[in-house]
């Protein structure tokens, strides 16, 4: 609950959204949950105008800005090469939607970003998720880690040691992380933190013990924690069981986005959304299934300091 110290944010469509005052949010992490029940177009797919508006509102709420352009200017600077880290493992069924990425690239262009790279593990993953590979040229490129490969030297933190993809280390100045709101059969959920497994050469080594502490350790690699600026979790379709593969029987139309600068807070909020859905449908909790995502609290501990998972320090803003 937001309490009594509320300020109002005026969105582009004239609506006002209540936000905590600046003093109230000191030392806290905001997670914006933006939803639009009418975002789906009559046929298959999404209403691109409503999707762009949803994104704008989410960004404005995240950064307390009266315009989306102002908000994006707090994320990136003109001249930077911006990576858009999508999550394509689930194929076209539950990957980051190209429509969302398109809306983001449009706004990035408007704030002076001319070089963007959509990337994930492999070209084939991207293609299965409806992205068109464009390895060369300027402007908007799109390719997997198999194109540029990995660094020769290991990044090491805690129990993890990995080679980082060159797309992240050598191409991108800043990264927008675009995970999907979904369940993970081993790690509980795969959201902002775990999606960065797509930046390393050996993710298969880090699923033991429900990914704890590996997910947190990998995110703590300097190229990741220093370059990822914002997390926009694609919850247009969400999946509460059977992930990370696409399992249509366990998906539901969440029709929303989760946005935060804090990957730990976003993961905590996303995890609770999935748990709530599981409870609604009578599925056992992730703890009962011995796959509670303990790596989220590990990511917040004194060794990692990647964000907060303390509900008292998370401002959950729903618009």
């Amino acid at each position, binding site marked *: 609950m937001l309490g009594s110290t509320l300020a109002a944010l005026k969105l582009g469509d004239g609506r006002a959204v209540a936000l905590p005052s600046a003093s109230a949010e000191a030392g806290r992490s905001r997670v914006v949950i933006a939803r639009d029940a009418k975002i789906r177009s009559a046929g298959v797919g999404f209403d691109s105008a409503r999707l762009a508006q949803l994104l704008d509102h989410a960004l404005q709420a995240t950064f307390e800005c009266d315009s989306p352009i102002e908000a994006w200017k707090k994320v990136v600077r003109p001249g930077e090469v911006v990576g858009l880290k999508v999550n394509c493992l689930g194929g076209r069924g539950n990957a980051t939607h190209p429509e969302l990425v398109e809306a983001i690239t449009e706004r990035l262009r408007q704030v002076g970003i001319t070089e963007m790279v959509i990337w994930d593990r492999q070209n084939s993953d991207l293609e299965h998720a409806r992205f068109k590979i464009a390895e060369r040229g300027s402007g908007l490129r799109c390719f997997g880690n198999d194109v540029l490969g990995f660094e020769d030297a290991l990044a090491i933190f805690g129990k993890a040691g990995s080679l980082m993809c060159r797309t992240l280390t050598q191409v991108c100045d800043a990264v927008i992380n675009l995970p999907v709101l979904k369940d993970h059969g081993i790690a509980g959920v795969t959201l902002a933190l775990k999606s960065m497994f797509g930046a390393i*050469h050996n993710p298969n080594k880090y699923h033991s013990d429900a990914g704890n502490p590996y997910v947190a350790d990998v995110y703590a690699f300097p190229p990741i924690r220093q370059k990822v600026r914002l997390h926009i979790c694609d919850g247009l379709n969400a999946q509460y069981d059977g992930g990370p593969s696409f399992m249509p029987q366990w998906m539901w139309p969440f029709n929303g986005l989760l946005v935060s600068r804090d990957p730990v807070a976003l993961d905590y909020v996303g995890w609770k959304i999935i748990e709530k859905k599981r409870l609604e449908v009578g599925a056992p909790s992730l703890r009962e299934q011995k796959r509670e995502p303990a790596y989220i609290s590990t990511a917040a501990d004194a060794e990692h300091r990647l964000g907060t998972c303390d509900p008292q320090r998370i401002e959950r803003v729903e618009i």
Partner: protein
Amino acid sequence: MKDTSRTILNALDRRAFLKAASLPCLAACGGAFAGAPLAAPLFATPPATESDSQFIREAKFYEKLPYKKTKCKLCPRECVIDDQERGYCGVRENRGGTYYTLVHSRVVTAHIDPIEKKPFFHFMPGAVAFSLATAGCNVNCKMCQNWDISQVRPEQVRSTYAPPDKITALAQQNSCPVIAYTYSEPVIFLEYVLDCAAAARPAGVRSAVVSGGYIQADPLKKLCAQVDAIKIDLKAYSEKYYKEVVNGELKPVLDAIVTIRKAGVWNEIVYLVVPTLNDGDAEFQGLARWVKSELGPDVPLHFSRFHPEYLLKNLPPTPIETLERAKAIADAEGLHYVYIGNVPGHPAESTYCPHCRKKVVDRTGYTINGVYLHHGKCQFCHTVIPGVWT
């Protein structure tokens, strides 16, 4: 499909192999890196891509589960794999509910090595082994010397198509009486090992496996039926070490060694002694007692020197005194053939008759200076020295 066989044959001629095998590393290290390839891969073909269907075979050991999941039954980890995902080893992938190995005939490195480099000390001494590996491993040892091939996915490293019959032919062309499956972890390319060994045996070429022994009983029994020798890297004699340093389990490895012994396949054991982590007297004693009681006193046990690598660069090389202490403890427990490895020139590199104490195989590093055996017996006192000597 591109036929690269000619390229392989050209690349893997004897001259190239001998050149690689005589690189300064061999002399300089003197066996200090006993598990590492001696040189860069000899194959000169372009990198293979994941889509290369020539490397892909349906896995032999797995179960199909509901919702297109698979459960791997190759190693005790028993990874449950979602569609389009891979197991811990990184070389087996679920595609639509069917599980595939991606590394059949996908050789990432191949060299001609002395058999002593594996090390095998009681198996064809002085022989050279056609030694090969694919990418991948089913554990993740923090001290891995070959992590750049064992801890990567096959598409992340240069590899070459080398089907089993080609491997046999290459071994014969290069006067190698044995093929060694080594460097990474043969368990994860088991289908390829089985096919290579089956092709090699009728041609009189033997097969020797260098493994961590983290494998289930059924595939291990099939392996034992096809190969002639198995060396197990027993990383420690504690579950704690296996969990924290190896990312595996001790018990299945001990079970595997017993299975190998019962199958009658020649077996040697290497124990890499890592300072502060697995170098306690109690652990050495426990290991020696287990070997004697479960396997008998004649199984060769090698205490090898650790060198800082991969994720354990913070530790020093093993003091030689530590290795000598380990050997003394194992000797005192009654083991007959306890060696010190990765210390070229150490007297404990040689084999001594347990009865008359005379030297029956004289070694320096990988070099055999003399073999004083007659039909597998000590030529001085005629005690049988177990092994495969010819």
